[in-house]
């Protein structure tokens, strides 16, 4: 008997087990209309999912992994006849990459911006002027609640 070694990451194992319980039968419907699969060479949600199920998911983390190509359009999860959610598995792999410190700079930047300022992006003079001209409420002073503290205190 072969013994399949599961991922050492608890969260990834939890998600893979949860999804595997629904019994993917590798029909490939998640690949057919996947935008990232159609418009790049090395992205395949079925393959990613199966690798995770076989305990090979950790080879899929890192900045250069194809997982970052996913457009999070949710088509795979909408169409799966077995109710598997491939996009959840891809997001779990991204979370694991972040935890390992090996994810694209843009993800780190968005996270830092949200935690520091409560928003993605900054209040610029341009937008302040435009909002005034358009009679919109002020955009705020860039000092949203300290979400970093909010998360860590809870």
């Amino acid at each position, binding site marked *: 008997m072969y013994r399949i070694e599961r991922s050492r990451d608890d969260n990834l194992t939890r998600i893979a087990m949860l999804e595997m319980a629904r019994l993917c039968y590798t029909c490939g419907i998640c690949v057919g209309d996947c935008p990232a699969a159609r418009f*790049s060479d090395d992205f395949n949600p079925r393959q990613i999912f199966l690798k995770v199920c076989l305990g090979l998911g950790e080879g899929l983390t890192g900045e250069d992994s194809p997982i970052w*190509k996913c*457009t999070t359009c*949710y088509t795979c999860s909408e169409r799966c006849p077995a109710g598997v959610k491939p996009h959840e598995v891809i*997001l779990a792999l991204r979370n694991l990459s972040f935890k390992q410190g090996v994810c694209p700079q843009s*993800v780190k930047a*968005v*996270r830092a911006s949200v935690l520091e300022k409560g928003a993605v992006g900054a209040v610029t003079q341009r937008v302040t002027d*435009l909002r005034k001209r358009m009679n919109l409420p002020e955009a705020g002073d860039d000092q949203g609640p300290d979400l970093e503290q909010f998360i860590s205190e*809870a």
Partner: protein
Amino acid sequence: MKPEGTKQEFWFFPGCMARLKLPQVERSVRTLLEDLGVSLKDEPRFTCCPDPVMFRSASRDDWLFLAARNLSLDSGPPIVTLCPGCASSLSEARHVLDEDEELAASVAARLRKSGLKLALPHTQHFLQILSDPGVREDIAERVTKRFDGLKAGTHYGCHLVRPSSAVHFENPEKPTCLDDLLSLTGAEPVDYDDKYLCCGRPSIDDATSSAIVEHKLKAMKAAGCEMLLVACPFCFEQFDLGQAILERKGGSFGIPVLYVSQFLNLAMGRDPQELGLELHRIKPNGLL
């Protein structure tokens, strides 16, 4: 028109992208909803929804907790967003917490430490309000500028309708609301190739993202689209700025992109000067 006394009220969730980058989109949505008698309340304590793509890619736990924070700030009316990403993110968080009692209890306990009581109000994109037959009739009656014969493409945006288990709006693969609204003005919805394909913007890989937007713009042009209607600030930027970038590299499309609310503002007689259309990269001058 709706009789007095049935005025709908919502917390207005503007989201980062429109608030900080595309204020003209926020202006047009507020104007449209005000014209339709919908009352909006502002909540300055709202933060990023948080972003269901980038922020959630870092940590699902933190995404869920901060979404729960936004949902729990107030009681009272439901939330309306102008961005499908915000609506989808908040709806999905609500769905996750609705389905998992244990998780909800732990999130509630964490929120209590900051003096918040976990609440799960309904969140919707403003197009859901516009899908009401009475509201649609109201819009039809208010159309003063018609666009008879204008060949227009529509692009829905994935998060407007998905995940359908949380969003519950329209057919999750073939929505029709934008085409229906176009028709109220006499414009002619165009069925172009891959109409329901994602715009590509949320891919963190630039090559994938630009290959998709180029493919879609070529399909729209081949089908004769004279304008594109969108309902998501990210799709807007992908098609407007993305188109300008492709044109600089030698592409030729010339398809102005309008947010659905801007188009309806125009059709309902608002002065084009109010709409900030001069801020668009692809100038919609031919439509004015």
